[in-house]
Each structure stands twice: as structure tokens, then as C-alpha cells.
């Protein structure tokens, strides 16, 4: 992995590619959604891609991530297979969970993407437990746990912080703070905005990134991970970001009145996808874009063509080692 301080043009290409792939894949999911071929609720990350990409680009393939039901970005940024994801959304047996999990339960163990959960906060301690195993393994691997601002209200979040810090486990805690849990703003949920302060008092170094700067996120994580590989304990990132679409489903929802389209416009003005894209020359960018369109089209085609699981599959995988 290149030095975090100086980015090569290859780094920029890779980061752009990842941002663009997520953005376009989700836009296509939104486009296809009304056709009812997607058999799953979808929680889109459009507008939030920079957090997943910034963090995952600082990790190696051997490192581990765990995400949430809003997990397309995490899955793709960590190298999850697009075909398998699309097929999963379509409920097909070629999906990453054989159609049994859907969009909220993406998983790809071969890429070290742990399975996501639809119950908020639930995967945070799992990433900590995985990190416990990584520490025991002694190969310097780390785990990154993604979760929303809402998840920090669940008690398990604090329990997990305490344990990870107590045992100095190699965990990157990443809070994607998009200011809303469904439609409820932080002001109705948090007694104080001092999230980093609360976390720091568990003895965990914290970073508050308020502009979604993908390079800054990447650098912070890369520096911290380098130390973790030598035995340092967890860090915590509060990354401000913004969800451009509705909480669940393919549409925008600014007319609902719980938030203001202007807020989104402010975020869009500093959209990291555009920012990073602008660093590339037009040819390179165009080439990447075309490749991505092909990949997405191929993934949708793959999903469409794949079969549903056969009826017997209902009864398989209840227990491991069963059939």
C-alpha cells in the first residue's frame, strides 16, 4: 500500500473508481427498483460513499470490515463482488448469501466483508470479537466497524468501546454521522453532540471529520492502522456525511419536511466523487466510467439471468454441517 502521505495517480484512480462504482451501482439500483425485480428493501448510501471508500482504501484485503443494512458502499469499497451483490438484491441463488439475506445482509467472507445486520448496532461487538481473534492470530490484521449515528445510542456501542479499549484491540470504529436516524434528527436523540468526547474518555483516540474529505479519512485510518499492526489499540472516527435519498427506498424525500433540500445541496457542492474525479484527466476518467457502466450492466444482466434458489434451499443452512 502506498505511503498515506503522498497519493500516486494510481491511488487517485483507484479511489475515484471505487466512489464512482458505488454511486452508479446505487443509482442503477434506484432506477431498476420500481420494476420489482429487486426483492429487498434498499438503504442507499448515495452521498455517503466517501466514508466507506476512504476507510477501506487504507486497509488491505486481509483486513476485515463490518457494515450495516446501509451496506452497499462498505461491501463494494472492500472489494465485494458486484454480481453477487446484485443477484442478492434480486433474490437469486447466485447472490452473496444465495438470496437468503437480501440487501440488508450483504456478506463476502472471501473479501473479509462480515455479514451485515438489520438490527441497529448489532454488528459493532462482532467486529470487536473478530479483532480479538486477529490480535490472537498475530499477523497485524485489523477490523473496521461501520455504523450510523443512531447506533451510538445503543448501549452495546459503549460496551464495545470499553472492551476494545481495555484489550487494546485493532478496531477502527467508524461512525457515519448523517445526522438522522430514519427521519429523526440528532437533536431529538443526543443529549450532547460531544460524541468524540464520550468515546475519548474510554481511552480511545478520536477524529472528527466534518467535511467527508476522502483523503483525510484515508490518511487518518492509514496512520492509525499502521500503529495497530504494531499493537496499538482502537481508534474512533466520527465522519459527518449526508444521505441524499430517502432512508429506505430509491427516492428522494425532501418534500416530507423533516429536512431541507438545501442541506443536501451544500453537501453536494463538495461531493467527493466530483472532487476526486476532477483530479483525473478526462480520458482516464471517461475510461473508468465506461468500464463501470459495463460492470453494472453486466451485474444486472447476471442477476436477471440467475435462477432463484430451488425450493429445497428453504431447509438448508439452518445448521452448519447439516446439508
Amino acid at each position, binding site marked *: 500500500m502506498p505511503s498515506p502521505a503522498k497519493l500516486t495517480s494510481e491511488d487517485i484512480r483507484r479511489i475515484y473508481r471505487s466512489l464512482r462504482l458505488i454511486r452508479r451501482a446505487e443509482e442503477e439500483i434506484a432506477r431498476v427498483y420500481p420494476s420489482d425485480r429487486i426483492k429487498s428493501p434498499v438503504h442507499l448510501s448515495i452521498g455517503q460513499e466517501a466514508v466507506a471508500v476512504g476507510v477501506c482504501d487504507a486497509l488491505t484485503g486481509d483486513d476485515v470490515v463490518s457494515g450495516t443494512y446501509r451496506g452497499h458502499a462498505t461491501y463494494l469499497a472492500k472489494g465485494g463482488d458486484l454480481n453477487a451483490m446484485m443477484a442478492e438484491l434480486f433474490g437469486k441463488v447466485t447472490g452473496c448469501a444465495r*438470496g437468503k439475506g437480501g440487501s440488508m445482509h450483504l456478506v463476502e467472507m472471501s473479501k473479509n466483508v462480515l455479514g451485515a445486520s438489520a438490527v441497529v448496532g448489532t454488528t459493532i461487538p462482532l467486529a470487536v470479537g473478530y479483532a480479538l481473534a486477529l490480535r490472537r492470530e498475530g499477523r497485524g490484521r485489523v477490523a473496521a466497524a461501520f455504523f450510523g449515528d443512531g447506533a451510538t445510542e445503543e448501549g452495546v456501542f459503549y460496551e464495545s468501546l470499553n472492551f476494545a479499549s481495555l484489550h487494546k484491540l485493532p478496531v477502527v470504529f467508524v461512525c457515519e454521522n448523517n445526522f438522522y436516524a430514519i427521519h429523526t434528527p440528532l437533536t431529538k436523540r443526543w443529549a450532547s453532540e460531544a460524541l468524540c468526547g464520550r468515546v475519548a474518555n474510554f481511552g480511545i483516540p478520536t477524529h472528527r471529520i466534518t467535511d467527508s474529505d476522502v483523503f483525510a479519512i484515508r490518511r487518518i485510518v492509514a496512520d492509525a492502522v499502521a500503529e495497530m499492526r504494531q499493537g496499538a489499540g482502537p481508534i474512533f472516527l466520527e465522519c459527518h456525511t449526508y444521505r441524499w435519498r430517502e432512508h429506505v427506498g430509491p427516492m428522494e424525500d425532501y418534500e416530507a419536511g423533516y429536512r431541507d433540500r438545501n442541506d443536501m445541496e451544500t453537501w453536494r457542492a463538495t461531493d467527493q466523487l466530483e472532487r476526486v474525479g476532477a483530479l483525473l484527466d478526462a480520458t482516464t476518467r471517461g475510461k473508468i466510467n465506461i468500464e463501470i457502466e459495463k460492470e453494472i450492466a453486466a451485474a444486472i444482466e447476471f442477476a436477471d439471468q440467475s435462477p432463484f434458489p430451488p425450493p429445497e434451499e428453504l431447509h438448508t443452512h439452518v445448521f452448519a454441517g447439516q446439508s
Partner: protein
Amino acid sequence: MSSPARAEAPAVSRESGRLLRYVDALREAVAQEMEADERVFVLGLDVDDHKGIQGSTLGLQARFGTERIFNTPLSEDAMTGVAIGAAIAGLRPIHVHIRMDFLMLCMNQLVNMAAKMHYMYGGTVTVPLVVRSMIGKSWGQGAQHSQGLYSMFMHVPGLKVVAPSNAHDAKGCLIAAIRDDNPVIFVEHRLLYGTEAFVDEAPFTVEFGKARIAVPGNDITLVGVSNMVVECLRAQELLSEVGISAEVLDPISLVPLDFDTILASARRTGCVLVVDNAWTTCGASAEIIARLAEATSGGDAKPIVMRRMGFAPTTCPTTPALEQTFYPNPATIASAVHSLVRPKAKAWSPAPERAVLAYQRQFRGPF
């Protein structure tokens, strides 16, 4: 979505009142009780947003203010404790959860505290708490948004458990739950929200522990739980076309359970099928069958045929290709009844398209 949904709604005892959707009956019950008793208040995630728990809490905040209906942080465990604390202080909280699965986060408060406090404190404390929770189905709800976990609450003395299957009972049971001095786990099925029934406008209660004979019949007793009442009713129609007369019972409340009515029907028809919206192992269906077995074995009465249906013994899959066989439906219910009532006849099953219920067809995702 009125008429087809209505057609499926169980006939309730009296057809007075207006046609009302289940979701509106819930909201009306809460509004009327909040109006009548200022101790009643509502808390829960997203109770005050523009979707208002699929509409069931819509407009209540505008009417009753933020002190009496408010959103909570994502802290199910503590918020359940807060609700219990307010209840022992004399208020009457209604704690709303958009999915029953999330109750797994507050089991400690519900099982170790709410259920036990009246007893453990020698009767000096009462916990008039209502816990509303919804069961999801289809459209990719999947493993963690589809569970009907009420048998866990049935297991623990001190909790009441109700699962109304129609708008009339939804209103009457919710009012009864709010007025009850005990913790009540109130089970709602998402797909019932759009179904309509005749519901009186004035507040009324549906008494717990009284089953309803939704349709009388002679050949078999079908006991449905929650939305499975609706599915049983369709099965009953299909069965009547082949000359099988099914009696459909709706227990309405699971704790207390009106076992007498079930037993009397079972003795009369000689055959019982319990259809649950949950897993069968240690489920409500196990309990009903076990009680029947205890009550009818060992005496001189003629033996009764007993069976149950419920979720497949698997996790709920997301893909509809598998999900459709995860649940009982009117076709599988009717077919099972046929083989019980006519064990020697050739297996029969209604045409699948005739067994699809409007309330299922109309339901559109994602949530």
C-alpha cells in the same frame, strides 16, 4: 384497498360502527384513551415522524403535544425501563416498536422486571405498560424483521399477550390493554394494517381471555393466531367449496387464553389444526395442542385429531422464491385440513391463485 381487504376481515360479532382500517383503529384507540386519561402517553422510535408507524400514530403529537407522545433515542433497553419506571409512578405508557424482532433488545426489562414486579414486590407495585410491536412479512423483510416471537412472552408468568386479527379487535384490545394494570404485549401484524372491519366509534374494550368463533363449522376446528385468522378464513371458504365445514376460532388473546372455547369446539368437531404466525417449536401452537392433549387424553371421550402449522423450521429467507413456502397460506392450510378430515381421500389442494389474499397482493415494499 377497501373492498377486497374487507371481504377477508373476520366477521366480528356485531356489524355496527364504521368500516375502519386496522391501522386507523389502532390510532383511534390510542387517541381516545389519551383524551380520556391524561396518564396515557406514547413513546417509541419514530412515533412522531411523517410516517407515524405506518400511520398508526399519525397526528397524535399535533393533538396531544410532545410531552405525551415523543420519539426516543435508539435505546430499546433503557426506554423499556423508562416506560416501566413511568408506569410504576402511575402513568400508563404505550411503548411502540416497529418490529417485534427489536424486543430482543429489551427482554431483560420485560422478562426480568415488568413481568415480575407485581409479584416480586408482594403486590405493592403495578406495571400498567403496553408494548406495541409489529410483525413484518414479505418484501425482503428477511430474518430479522419477520419474527413472531410472542411465545417467549407467553412463557413468562406476569405478561399478557394479545394478537388481534381485525380492526374491531385491534381497537377493543388496545383500549383494554391500556386500561389493564399489567404489562401487555400487543402483537400487530403489518399485513393486517390495511384490512377493514366494522368498528364502533365510541371507545369499547374487547375482553381478554375470550375467543371468538369467527365462522362456525362441524368438520374441523381451525385456530388461527394473528393474521393467520385471515388465512384460515380463506381456507375455510375454499374448503366449503369441496364440502368441508371448518370452524374458525380466533383466540384474540394468548395470555389469558380462552381454552374452554377451543376445547368445546375441538370436542364437537373431533379435529383441530392450529395455524400460527410463528415457529411451532415451543410456540403458541405447541401450547394449545398440549393443553388439548392433556384435557382430552386419559378419559373416556373420543380422541381428537390434533395438528399444527406455522413457520417452516428455518430462518426466514429474503428471496420470495423461498419465503413463499416459509409461511402457511390458505392453500397449504386447506390442503392440510383436507387430508385430516378425509384421510383416505386423494390429496387435494385449491388452485394457488385462488388462495392468494388481497391483503397480500396489495402489500408493497419496501417497508
